[in-house]
């Protein structure tokens, strides 16, 4: 595989009865960004942990920067940077001390570690907070510091596991900016995310993962065209009318409609002619005398990709509502740790 910095072949990993990875194939080419897109529990973190040598695979093969994750784990670690799903910064150290420590652990000389730490802090807008303990940092600042820690070693390959999950929209935009700049320097990046939009903005190629397997792979445009461009979403006021409404709009778009009987939601891929189909849908529903609670055109999300690819919905969390999700994330991690025992 010419010019590939990450090569994964038929990787499997089982936890008890759960196949976290069930034969995963993946490739990241030098200097590119691959987005590993999937819902909670799809196997994203497991993949990253195996590639970062935190976890041994059950079977299959994986190399990073040419090093085998099992046989050459030690050498591999000097070639990678990892920012895990939860910011792993030392709250009792200052921003500068955090990064300096990581630099020293990459075995950089003291002065060099300090210089790079300062560079990174500068670049991530943390220079003025560099002397404060990380305990005083906001969630967004911690994430940036954590990301910074994964960069002081100037890694050839970078792994970011859900870098913006739990951030408020503004911090998310800031982080996207940083990540985009970063990959302009030629760092190869494997990024996991639950958001199609995030993968769309940052990744050259996207691998959609479900049940520990890649179920689709391509550029964002390729994936979106498989979904059929934009999505028309409507909700009937009276749930009893869902079937009638669906009957009226089905066949309007290039793909089939998805009907959620419980909520009264109907989702319909509309290709490139969103406004035309929206207008036609409204006319038809009006003719049927179906009363709508809501109707909108929107860009496709992971949910839509999933519906199209698998026929089942995800449990992906909505993109807004930051603080609340941050705590639920922590809770679910605790749950996982408990299961670990």
């Amino acid at each position, binding site marked *: *595989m*010419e*010019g*590939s*910095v990450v090569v994964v072949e038929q990787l499997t990993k089982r936890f008890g009865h759960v196949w976290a990875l069930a034969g995963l194939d993946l490739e990241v080419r*030098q200097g590119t960004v691959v987005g590993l897109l999937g819902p909670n529990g799809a196997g994203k973190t497991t993949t990253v*942990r195996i590639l*970062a*040598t*935190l*976890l*041994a695979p059950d079977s299959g093969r994986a*190399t990073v*920067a*040419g*090093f085998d994750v099992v*046989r*050459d784990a*030690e*050498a591999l*670690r*000097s070639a*990678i940077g*990892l920012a*895990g*799903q*939860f*910011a*792993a*910064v*030392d*709250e*009792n*150290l200052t921003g500068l*001390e955090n990064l300096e*420590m*990581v630099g*020293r*652990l*990459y*075995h950089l000389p003291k002065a060099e570690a300090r210089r790079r730490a300062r560079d990174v802090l500068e670049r991530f807008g943390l220079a003025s907070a560099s002397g404060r*303990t990380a305990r005083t940092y906001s969630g967004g600042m911690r994430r940036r510091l954590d990301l910074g*820690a994964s960069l002081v*070693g100037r890694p050839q390959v970078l792994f970011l596991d859900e870098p913006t999950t739990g951030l408020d929209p503004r911090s998310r935009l800031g982080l996207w900016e940083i990540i985009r700049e970063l990959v302009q320097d030629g760092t190869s990046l494997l990024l996991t995310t639950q958001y199609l939009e995030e993968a769309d903005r940052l990744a050259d190629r996207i691998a959609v993962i479900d049940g520990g397997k890649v179920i689709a792979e391509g550029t964002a445009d390729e994936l979106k065209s498989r979904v059929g461009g934009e999505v028309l979403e409507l909700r009937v006021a009276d749930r009893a009318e869902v079937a009638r409404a669906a009957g009226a709009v089905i066949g309007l778009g290039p793909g089939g409609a998805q009907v959620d009987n419980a909520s009264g939601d109907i989702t319909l891929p509309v290709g490139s002619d969103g406004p035309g189909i929206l207008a036609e849908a409204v006319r038809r529903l009006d003719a049927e005398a179906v009363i709508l609670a809501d109707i909108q055109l929107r860009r496709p999300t992971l949910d839509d990709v999933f519906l199209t690819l698998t026929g089942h919905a995800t449990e992906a969390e909505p993109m807004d509502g930051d603080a609340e999700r941050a705590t639920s994330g922590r809770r679910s991690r*605790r749950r996982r*740790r*408990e299961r*670990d*025992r």
Partner: protein
Amino acid sequence: MSAKLAERTAARPGVIRRIRLAIADGLILTRRNLLHYVRVPTLLVFSTVQPVMFVLLFRFVFGGSIGRALPPGLNYVSYLMPGIFVQTSIFGATATGVGLAEDLGKGIIDRFRSLPMARSAVLAGRTTADLFRNLVVVLLMTSVGYLVGFRFQAGILFAVLAVLLAIGVGWTFSWISATIGLLLKDVESVQAASFVWIFPLTFASSVFVPVDTMPGWLQVWAKADPVSVWANTLRSFTLPGDPQTLNLGSSRLALALQSGLWVAAILAVFVPLAIRAYRRTG
């Protein structure tokens, strides 16, 4: 490129360099752990308040009546303080497991494990930092002891040996605590679990009271308890003259040997266990 990449294998550094790097990494993490006490001084304050309370409680509240059970010529504070050194060191060692569980929970251990640092550094750094912290606490306890009438009466050499034994015991228990911390992985559980084994070990021993005042069945336990051995050894290092006459059971040398054997035995079991538990945290 790919052909070259695919064939890349690790150029392992030489043994000497690996050892040097391992020591350097261990020291970096020792410094990191010690910085916590600088940043959150209350941590250190709390780890000394409790032992000070124990000293005051036993010296002034229980001391009067316990003192009567002691052999003539031995005052209670001279009996108590060596015991307190051991007890404080063992209680303090719970911080090792709590600290590791905390780092695990925050994902910091994951970060360390993804770095090209020595695998030994996390445990080495943690136990070494706790060794230094315990040294500070023991020296502080010595000062408190001097305020309430305790004196090193066997000379400076034995005074130094006494302090070394106390922190050595603390370090030994750090490895037990590390094993528990890495297995339970959760701060509160580690704290709760620690006291389950620490209480019988320290209180049913010669730390606070002479063993021969206990019922027969308990004496069996208390005499076999290594905590009693260490406390008695420390007494033999701080009291003047021949400890045999002070009813400590054996001579200084015999006690010191027993103490050393216990330390070695516990380390031989728990250092490998802790390392194994660390390897399995992935």
